[in-house]
């Protein structure tokens, strides 16, 4: 969440939401959370585990480009 919340401060376009997975099982199911941390960007790009800043940014840009998987 740390990188995500700093990104939110850096850009008006970015919103960062931390979700406590066990308190929201419906969301965890909907987003197929099997391991944490799990990051989902614009519901289209996702990854598990902490990524260094450049790779996290690449995921954000991938989501922004609309070519996620």
């Amino acid at each position, binding site marked *: 969440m*740390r990188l995500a919340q700093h990104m939110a401060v850096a850009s008006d376009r970015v919103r960062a*939401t*931390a979700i*406590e997975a066990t*308190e*929201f099982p419906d969301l*965890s199911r909907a987003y197929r959370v099997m391991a944490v*941390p799990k990051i989902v960007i614009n519901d289209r790009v996702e990854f598990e585990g902490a990524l260094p800043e450049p790779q996290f*940014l690449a995921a*954000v840009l991938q989501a922004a480009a609309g070519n996620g998987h």
Partner: protein
Amino acid sequence: MALLNARDEAEVRKQLGQIRDPVKLVVFSETLSGAADLCAQNEQLVREVAALTDKATVETLNLAIDRERAEGYGIERVPAIVVEGARDYGIRFYGVPSGYEFSNLIDSMIVASTGEPGLSEETKASLQALTIDIDIKVFSTPT
């Protein structure tokens, strides 16, 4: 009973010393929902944290009653926390922030108070060039 012990308080107070400008923690609860206990715990935690700095204020809202405010913030579930600095930067917490997320709550208050993200110039430039909205969800667990 306090959620933060004396040692936690001392550590958090030290970290919150980095807050520069005022921050506001907007807490959403729903007393009649199944999440009432978690909402009460969340509200208590936020109040205990805010009491450790003179630069944080707390506003508590009810998801069922303060619907316009909830919509404005895009809050759909409880317990929830919005961390605001000079403006709403889009930082949200769903669920009681404990463990790792507790550290992030404190960090979010500090970065919201300065408006200065700890990111490289290259990252900041890329983010400022975004032309569509980006929603980042970070799922975690307390341990």
